[in-house]
Protein backbone atom coordinates (compact mmCIF):
# COMPACT_ATOMS: atom_id res chain seq x y z
CA UNK A 1 0.00 0.00 0.00
CA UNK A 2 1.43 3.41 -0.88
CA UNK A 3 1.64 6.04 1.74
CA UNK A 4 0.05 9.30 0.66
CA UNK A 5 2.17 12.31 1.43
CA UNK A 6 0.34 15.44 2.46
CA UNK A 7 1.55 18.65 0.84
CA UNK A 8 0.92 22.16 2.09
CA UNK A 9 -1.03 24.51 -0.13
CA UNK A 10 1.94 26.74 -0.68
CA UNK A 11 5.62 26.06 -0.22
CA UNK A 12 7.13 29.48 0.22
CA UNK A 13 9.73 30.84 2.60
CA UNK A 14 8.51 33.82 4.60
CA UNK A 15 9.14 37.15 2.93
CA UNK A 16 10.13 40.21 4.96
CA UNK A 17 10.37 43.65 3.38
CA UNK A 18 10.91 46.52 5.76
CA UNK A 19 8.47 45.96 8.59
CA UNK A 20 6.13 43.91 6.48
CA UNK A 21 6.13 40.13 6.59
CA UNK A 22 4.28 37.57 4.50
CA UNK A 23 4.19 33.90 5.37
CA UNK A 24 2.22 30.82 4.49
CA UNK A 25 0.68 29.18 7.52
CA UNK A 26 -0.91 25.84 8.30
CA UNK A 27 -4.15 26.39 10.16
CA UNK A 28 -4.93 22.75 10.78
CA UNK A 29 -8.48 21.59 10.14
CA UNK A 30 -10.93 23.98 8.48
CA UNK A 31 -14.56 22.95 8.56
CA UNK A 32 -17.50 24.74 7.06
CA UNK A 33 -20.40 24.81 9.49
CA UNK A 34 -23.68 25.82 7.84
CA UNK A 35 -26.54 26.29 10.24
CA UNK A 36 -29.83 24.66 9.25
CA UNK A 37 -32.99 26.76 9.64
CA UNK A 38 -34.11 27.10 13.24
CA UNK A 39 -31.13 25.29 14.72
CA UNK A 40 -29.60 28.21 16.61
CA UNK A 41 -30.09 26.63 20.04
CA UNK A 42 -28.66 23.28 19.03
CA UNK A 43 -25.72 25.06 17.47
CA UNK A 44 -25.05 27.09 20.62
CA UNK A 45 -25.07 23.88 22.61
CA UNK A 46 -22.67 22.14 20.26
CA UNK A 47 -20.29 25.08 20.39
CA UNK A 48 -20.36 25.41 24.19
CA UNK A 49 -17.58 22.89 24.90
CA UNK A 50 -15.31 24.88 22.57
CA UNK A 51 -16.19 28.12 24.32
CA UNK A 52 -17.37 29.59 21.02
CA UNK A 53 -20.55 31.19 19.79
CA UNK A 54 -21.85 31.36 16.25
CA UNK A 55 -20.43 34.63 14.88
CA UNK A 56 -22.36 37.62 13.62
CA UNK A 57 -21.65 38.73 10.05
CA UNK A 58 -18.16 40.10 9.50
CA UNK A 59 -16.85 38.82 12.80
CA UNK A 60 -15.46 35.77 14.52
CA UNK A 61 -15.57 33.94 17.81
CA UNK A 62 -12.26 32.70 19.18
CA UNK A 63 -10.95 30.80 22.15
CA UNK A 64 -7.71 28.99 22.90
CA UNK A 65 -6.38 29.06 19.35
CA UNK A 66 -9.66 27.89 17.85
CA UNK A 67 -11.78 30.29 15.86
CA UNK A 68 -15.17 30.24 14.25
CA UNK A 69 -15.12 32.75 11.41
CA UNK A 70 -18.20 34.08 9.66
CA UNK A 71 -18.03 33.27 5.96
CA UNK A 72 -21.57 33.81 4.74
CA UNK A 73 -25.21 33.84 5.74
CA UNK A 74 -25.61 31.24 8.49
CA UNK A 75 -22.22 29.83 7.59
CA UNK A 76 -18.89 29.90 9.42
CA UNK A 77 -15.51 28.19 9.22
CA UNK A 78 -14.29 26.37 12.27
CA UNK A 79 -10.53 26.65 12.20
CA UNK A 80 -7.88 24.90 14.26
CA UNK A 81 -9.80 21.97 15.68
CA UNK A 82 -11.49 18.82 14.47
CA UNK A 83 -15.17 19.59 14.21
CA UNK A 84 -17.33 18.29 17.05
CA UNK A 85 -20.59 16.52 16.29
CA UNK A 86 -23.13 19.11 15.29
CA UNK A 87 -25.87 16.52 14.87
CA UNK A 88 -28.69 17.89 12.77
CA UNK A 89 -27.84 21.48 13.62
CA UNK A 90 -25.57 22.12 10.68
CA UNK A 91 -24.23 20.89 7.39
CA UNK A 92 -20.60 20.15 8.08
CA UNK A 93 -18.09 20.08 5.27
CA UNK A 94 -14.36 19.55 5.41
CA UNK A 95 -12.58 22.45 3.74
CA UNK A 96 -9.11 21.86 5.19
CA UNK A 97 -7.17 21.28 2.02
CA UNK A 98 -9.15 23.71 -0.04
CA UNK A 99 -7.80 26.89 1.42
CA UNK A 100 -4.34 28.34 1.65
CA UNK A 101 -3.65 30.68 4.54
CA UNK A 102 -1.33 33.66 4.30
CA UNK A 103 -0.39 35.81 7.23
CA UNK A 104 0.52 39.40 6.47
CA UNK A 105 1.86 41.43 9.35
CA UNK A 106 3.61 44.70 10.07
CA UNK A 107 2.55 48.31 10.43
CA UNK A 108 2.07 48.70 6.67
CA UNK A 109 0.03 45.50 6.32
CA UNK A 110 -3.27 47.29 5.81
CA UNK A 111 -1.77 49.58 3.20
CA UNK A 112 -0.38 46.58 1.33
CA UNK A 113 -3.62 44.66 1.41
CA UNK A 114 -5.64 47.72 0.35
CA UNK A 115 -3.78 47.59 -2.96
CA UNK A 116 -5.93 44.56 -3.75
CA UNK A 117 -8.90 44.51 -1.40
CA UNK A 118 -11.41 47.32 -1.99
CA UNK A 119 -12.22 47.71 1.70
CA UNK A 120 -11.10 49.95 4.52
CA UNK A 121 -8.83 47.54 6.37
CA UNK A 122 -7.20 50.09 8.65
CA UNK A 123 -7.36 49.20 12.32
CA UNK A 124 -10.01 51.80 13.18
CA UNK A 125 -12.42 50.45 10.58
CA UNK A 126 -11.39 46.81 10.79
CA UNK A 127 -10.18 45.93 14.29
CA UNK A 128 -9.29 42.51 15.68
CA UNK A 129 -12.36 40.34 15.95
CA UNK A 130 -13.47 41.27 12.47
CA UNK A 131 -13.45 38.98 9.45
CA UNK A 132 -14.90 39.57 6.01
CA UNK A 133 -15.52 37.89 2.72
CA UNK A 134 -13.86 40.12 0.16
CA UNK A 135 -12.21 39.98 -3.22
CA UNK A 136 -8.44 40.03 -3.29
CA UNK A 137 -7.94 41.29 -6.80
CA UNK A 138 -10.01 38.83 -8.81
CA UNK A 139 -9.87 36.16 -6.12
CA UNK A 140 -12.41 35.21 -3.51
CA UNK A 141 -10.97 35.43 -0.02
CA UNK A 142 -11.65 35.54 3.70
CA UNK A 143 -9.76 38.32 5.43
CA UNK A 144 -9.38 38.02 9.18
CA UNK A 145 -7.92 40.84 11.27
CA UNK A 146 -5.32 39.81 13.82
CA UNK A 147 -3.44 41.94 16.33
CA UNK A 148 -0.34 42.20 14.17
CA UNK A 149 -1.95 42.13 10.76
CA UNK A 150 -4.14 39.86 8.71
CA UNK A 151 -4.84 36.23 8.09
CA UNK A 152 -5.96 35.71 4.51
CA UNK A 153 -7.69 32.57 3.29
CA UNK A 154 -7.52 31.99 -0.41
CA UNK A 155 -8.44 29.08 -2.71
CA UNK A 156 -5.62 26.59 -2.67
CA UNK A 157 -5.33 26.52 -6.46
CA UNK A 158 -4.83 30.29 -6.55
CA UNK A 159 -2.41 30.54 -3.66
CA UNK A 160 0.59 31.22 -5.88
CA UNK A 161 -1.17 34.11 -7.57
CA UNK A 162 -2.28 35.52 -4.23
CA UNK A 163 1.25 35.35 -2.90
CA UNK A 164 2.60 37.00 -6.02
CA UNK A 165 0.05 39.81 -5.89
CA UNK A 166 0.72 40.56 -2.24
CA UNK A 167 4.46 40.35 -2.78
CA UNK A 168 4.26 42.88 -5.62
CA UNK A 169 2.24 45.23 -3.41
CA UNK A 170 4.81 44.85 -0.63
CA UNK A 171 7.70 45.56 -2.96
CA UNK A 172 5.94 48.49 -4.55
CA UNK A 173 5.11 50.07 -1.24
CA UNK A 174 8.61 49.47 0.09
CA UNK A 175 10.09 51.15 -3.00
CA UNK A 176 8.21 54.35 -2.17
CA UNK A 177 10.09 54.77 1.10
Amino acid at each position, binding site marked *: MPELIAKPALEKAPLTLGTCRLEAVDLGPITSVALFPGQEKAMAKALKPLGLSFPD*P*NSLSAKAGVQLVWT*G*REQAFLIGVTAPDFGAAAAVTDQSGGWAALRLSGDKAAEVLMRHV*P*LDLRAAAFPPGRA*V*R*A*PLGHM*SSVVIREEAGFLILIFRSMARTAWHEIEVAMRTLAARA
Partner: protein
Amino acid sequence: MRIPCPLCGPRDRREFTYYGSDDYLNRPAPDAGAGPWDDHLHLRANPAGETHDLWYHEAGCAQWLRVHRNTVSHEIYGAALVAGLKGGAQ
Protein backbone atom coordinates in the same frame (compact mmCIF):
# COMPACT_ATOMS: atom_id res chain seq x y z
CA MET B 1 -21.11 52.81 -7.19
CA ARG B 2 -21.50 51.20 -3.80
CA ILE B 3 -24.20 48.76 -2.78
CA PRO B 4 -25.15 48.38 0.87
CA CYS B 5 -25.11 44.62 1.40
CA PRO B 6 -27.33 43.85 4.41
CA LEU B 7 -24.74 41.35 5.60
CA CYS B 8 -21.36 42.69 4.48
CA GLY B 9 -22.00 46.43 4.62
CA PRO B 10 -21.42 48.93 1.81
CA ARG B 11 -19.32 47.36 -0.89
CA ASP B 12 -17.86 48.39 -4.23
CA ARG B 13 -19.84 47.52 -7.34
CA ARG B 14 -17.00 45.31 -8.56
CA GLU B 15 -18.00 42.72 -5.94
CA PHE B 16 -21.44 42.21 -7.43
CA THR B 17 -22.90 40.48 -10.45
CA TYR B 18 -25.94 42.11 -11.98
CA TYR B 19 -28.89 40.04 -13.04
CA GLY B 20 -31.94 42.10 -13.81
CA SER B 21 -35.33 43.24 -12.62
CA ASP B 22 -36.85 41.83 -9.46
CA ASP B 23 -39.61 40.46 -11.70
CA TYR B 24 -37.44 37.35 -11.59
CA LEU B 25 -38.57 36.78 -8.02
CA ASN B 26 -42.12 36.01 -9.08
CA ARG B 27 -41.91 32.72 -10.87
CA PRO B 28 -45.18 31.77 -12.61
CA ALA B 29 -46.83 28.45 -11.92
CA PRO B 30 -45.49 25.65 -14.11
CA ASP B 31 -48.79 25.53 -16.01
CA ALA B 32 -49.29 29.27 -16.25
CA GLY B 33 -48.90 29.18 -20.01
CA ALA B 34 -46.59 30.82 -22.49
CA GLY B 35 -47.83 34.38 -21.92
CA PRO B 36 -47.08 34.73 -18.22
CA TRP B 37 -43.80 32.85 -18.64
CA ASP B 38 -42.74 35.08 -21.48
CA ASP B 39 -43.61 38.15 -19.44
CA HIS B 40 -41.72 36.80 -16.48
CA LEU B 41 -38.56 36.18 -18.44
CA HIS B 42 -38.52 38.86 -21.07
CA LEU B 43 -41.01 41.67 -20.57
CA ARG B 44 -39.42 44.50 -18.64
CA ALA B 45 -40.30 48.04 -17.76
CA ASN B 46 -37.45 50.42 -18.46
CA PRO B 47 -37.98 53.00 -15.75
CA ALA B 48 -36.29 56.36 -15.72
CA GLY B 49 -36.28 56.68 -11.98
CA GLU B 50 -36.80 54.20 -9.20
CA THR B 51 -36.17 50.57 -9.89
CA HIS B 52 -35.72 47.32 -8.02
CA ASP B 53 -33.23 44.88 -9.38
CA LEU B 54 -31.26 41.84 -8.41
CA TRP B 55 -27.54 41.73 -7.68
CA TYR B 56 -25.45 38.82 -6.52
CA HIS B 57 -22.78 39.52 -3.95
CA GLU B 58 -20.42 37.17 -5.66
CA ALA B 59 -17.18 38.37 -4.06
CA GLY B 60 -18.79 38.62 -0.63
CA CYS B 61 -21.51 36.68 1.12
CA ALA B 62 -22.92 34.97 -2.01
CA GLN B 63 -26.34 36.39 -1.32
CA TRP B 64 -28.78 37.67 -3.88
CA LEU B 65 -29.89 41.19 -3.11
CA ARG B 66 -32.88 43.19 -4.18
CA VAL B 67 -31.53 46.68 -4.66
CA HIS B 68 -33.77 49.71 -4.68
CA ARG B 69 -32.14 52.45 -6.69
CA ASN B 70 -32.72 55.30 -9.08
CA THR B 71 -31.56 55.06 -12.67
CA VAL B 72 -31.64 58.84 -13.10
CA SER B 73 -29.94 60.13 -9.97
CA HIS B 74 -28.00 56.90 -9.38
CA GLU B 75 -29.05 57.11 -5.77
CA ILE B 76 -29.22 53.77 -3.99
CA TYR B 77 -31.98 53.73 -1.42
CA GLY B 78 -31.29 50.33 0.04
CA ALA B 79 -30.84 46.63 -0.48
CA ALA B 80 -32.48 43.58 1.05
CA LEU B 81 -31.60 39.90 1.06
CA VAL B 82 -33.77 38.05 -1.43
CA ALA B 83 -33.75 35.12 0.97
CA GLY B 84 -35.46 37.25 3.60
CA LEU B 85 -38.22 38.63 1.39
CA LYS B 86 -41.71 37.47 2.18
CA GLY B 87 -43.46 35.99 -0.78
CA GLY B 88 -40.25 35.52 -2.73
CA ALA B 89 -40.92 31.85 -3.28
CA GLN B 90 -44.08 31.55 -5.27
